């Protein structure tokens, strides 16, 4: 059983398109996250949700919007894709409400390429 799953695994699209990446966790965790990893492997937090409430919103463009229909899902919607959005996007989850103080469990990543 996959603990944190993401779909799709690969996403190739044209500039200006809108796309979504889905994430699901079956660990019963309260908090979920989205990270962006650039070509130099630098991993940066984008968002986290705790019980359907946004608790961190880093300085990401408002073209990016997280949507959480329930505690087990945190989807990432991206409008008007730009070349600089090309990266690997990771979803993660952690058990409780202290994002920085707990082990996080990562999904396999979604490799986004914007042409």
């Amino acid at each position: 059983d996959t603990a944190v799953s993401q779909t799709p695994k690969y996403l190739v699209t044209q500039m200006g398109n809108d796309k979504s990446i889905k994430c699901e966790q079956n660990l019963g965790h309260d908090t979920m996250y989205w990270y962006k990893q650039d070509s130099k492997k630098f991993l940066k937090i984008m968002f986290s949700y705790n019980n359907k409430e946004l608790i961190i919103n880093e300085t990401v463009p408002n073209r990016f919007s997280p949507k959480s229909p329930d505690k087990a899902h945190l989807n990432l919607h991206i409008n008007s894709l730009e070349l600089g959005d090309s990266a690997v996007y990771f979803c993660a989850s952690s058990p409780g409400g202290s994002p920085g103080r707990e082990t996080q469990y990562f999904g396999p990543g979604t490799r986004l390429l914007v042409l």
Partner: protein
Amino acid sequence: SQQGEEDPQALSIQEGENATMNCSYKTSINNLQWYRQNSGRGLVHLILIRSNEREKHSGRLRVTLDTSKKSSSLLITASRAADTASYFCATDDGTALIFGKGTTLSVSS
């Protein structure tokens, strides 16, 4: 801003040798974590060390933490080819995990 900084950026060793990676950070922390990322995969948690701990072991892994120097080290003993991966330290700023840029370890047989 980036909190953790790993050193070296890349490390190549032979199987059976020990590998040491270092992490320096800037501000006070509650804990520090180490993660491994195999090529093309997500990150996997290795070990968490709290700010009041100085050393922690897990199998072939040994982590030390020196809060006075704001640094941590990860030692992998008797390395194996399967240890080839990128290793990241992550610190806690109270609201999120902040990752360093990682050390890429290559273990050749």
